[in-house]
């Protein structure tokens, strides 16, 4: 039993390093159930790998737009548009970006500044199913509407059906909300 115990503990530690619940689930199952992995094809990171001005190194998770660790996703709870046919700031083809949103404040490790991030939902097609990411920094209950990521923010669009979420820089924070 000690060997299994040990193996479980190591697997759990390794898995606990990941961030999102679904990727955790994935990892968990992976360690125990069986499936994917080698050779797992390289997944393209963001769209293009050249460093963008003012953005973190795209070789680090904080700089990869389809990693849950990407700095702009600090307050997100949803599927990443960048894994679903869109990018970190554009929606997947055929969806509509909702004009009303919730707001987070995230620190850009490239310049150490806090930016105001608008998390616009992409709407009109069913759930993307890839890159579920939940970080919740500063998330508030539903009645504190502009900072609540549980709300289906597909409002002001033709359909309330939720697909995924983008993270758009809309300002520099001078005071934390």
């Amino acid at each position, binding site marked *: 039993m000690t060997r299994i115990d040990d193996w479980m503990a190591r697997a759990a530690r390794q898995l606990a390093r990941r961030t999102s619940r679904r990727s955790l689930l994935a990892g968990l199952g992976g360690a125990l159930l069986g499936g994917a992995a080698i050779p797992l094809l390289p997944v393209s990171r963001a769209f293009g790998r050249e460093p963008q001005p003012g*953005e973190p190194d795209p070789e680090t998770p904080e700089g990869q737009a389809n990693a849950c660790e990407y700095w702009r996703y600090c307050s997100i709870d949803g599927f990443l548009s960048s894994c*679903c*046919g869109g990018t970190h700031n554009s929606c997947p083809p055929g969806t509509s970006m909702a004009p009303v949103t919730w707001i987070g404040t995230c620190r850009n490790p490239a310049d150490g500044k806090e*930016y105001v991030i608008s998390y616009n939902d992409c709407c009109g097609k069913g759930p993307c199913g890839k890159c579920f990411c939940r970080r919740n920094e500063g998330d508030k209950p539903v009645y504190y509407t502009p900072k609540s990521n549980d709300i289906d923010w597909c409002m002001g669009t033709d359909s309330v059906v939720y697909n995924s979420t983008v993270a758009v820089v809309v300002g520099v*924070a001078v005071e934390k909300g």
Partner: protein
Amino acid sequence: MPRTNRRTRRTLSIWAFALLLAGPSDADLPLEPVGRVATIKTPYSPHWVFVGDALGHRTALIDVEDGRMLGTLDSGFGIPQTLHPTRRSEIYVIETHYSRGSRGERSDVLTIYDKASLAPIAEVAIPPKRALSATPVAHVALSDDDRFAAIFNLTPASSLSIVDLEQRRFVSEIQMPGCSLVYPIGERRFAALCMNGSLLVIRLDDSGREVGKQRSQPFFDPETDPVTEKAARFGDRWLFPSFDGWIHPVDFSGPEPVFEERWSLTSERERADGWKIGGYQHLAVHEKSATLYALMHQGGIDSHKQPGSEVWFYDLTERERTRRVELVNPGFTYLGVPIEGGPTWGWLVDWIGDRVMHAIPDIGVDSIAVTLDDAPRLVTSGMFSGGIASFDALTGEFIGRVFSGNLTNAVIQTASPATPGPR
């Protein structure tokens, strides 16, 4: 509200929002527009495949080279049925909806999507009686010139609905008692399989109306060794595989179908060992290399839906097997999310996955498809496993796994706009 490039700052003013925004200084990241929606580069890469989700009611467009999702097409109830013309930058999705989800008023439509935007651009209402089944193939078809779509209806009376895709309207319904399914066999002709083992050939005029309907002699015995619905096209021929592994080629180049001599996918010895064709999408053809791919398993009687453990390659010119490729587990998912072991545990996860797939007859590959290009990929998936594995379709070499984000992978469609011909 219209989808515009408005600035979020304006949006924010909807809220009495406590946070102050400073104008960006030179060193700050620039403010970004909201409202942007991505489009897809056309023509599509030949290694992009459509994977239909029976539970999620959608089709995902996935790059089998790097696993990237290009986008999705939602559909309604049933296994998604999509059609891919080569002459228009469009995709057709046949959908069934109820006004209250699973009840209420039924609407069947053929929705026309733009290939670059994946947005619906038109909708054609069709009679609300299309056939729905667990068989992912031969329920809808496109004429060879992309002019007409034919949709198989079953109420249980059997018919075809014909849609004119140039004029974007439903034009006619053609009865076909005793016959089912639909196979494209030219610009103005479709074929159907009949219960007595014969074929029905339906001819249309240029307006999409029936001008002729002819039943052939039976070419197989549906009682003793039926052909499956899951035929593959090879030029003017359709290849119908039987439960026992016989290929019945039918040549549709002339005015009447010509039934060529059947040949077997298996040797006598292999048949004795129980090797059979099985799964839900079990035959594929790579036209340029004249290669046939068959999804094979070892099973007993009534095992025709059992997933495959190997894909066998055949030279269609010589009617000879050229290769046996042992399949790997396409990779499991949970609620669409890949179950991965990561760099440390990947080998173990892999090893278990393959072991399990081969040890248990009901877990494995249900669908195969092959891309149409000169460096073709053999693409495999399992209904319940979730992942998609790809192989070099010339050498059989395993390339890797990608994930669709689907709950189930019920059907794979390969489409290359650069390659007219059979779909």
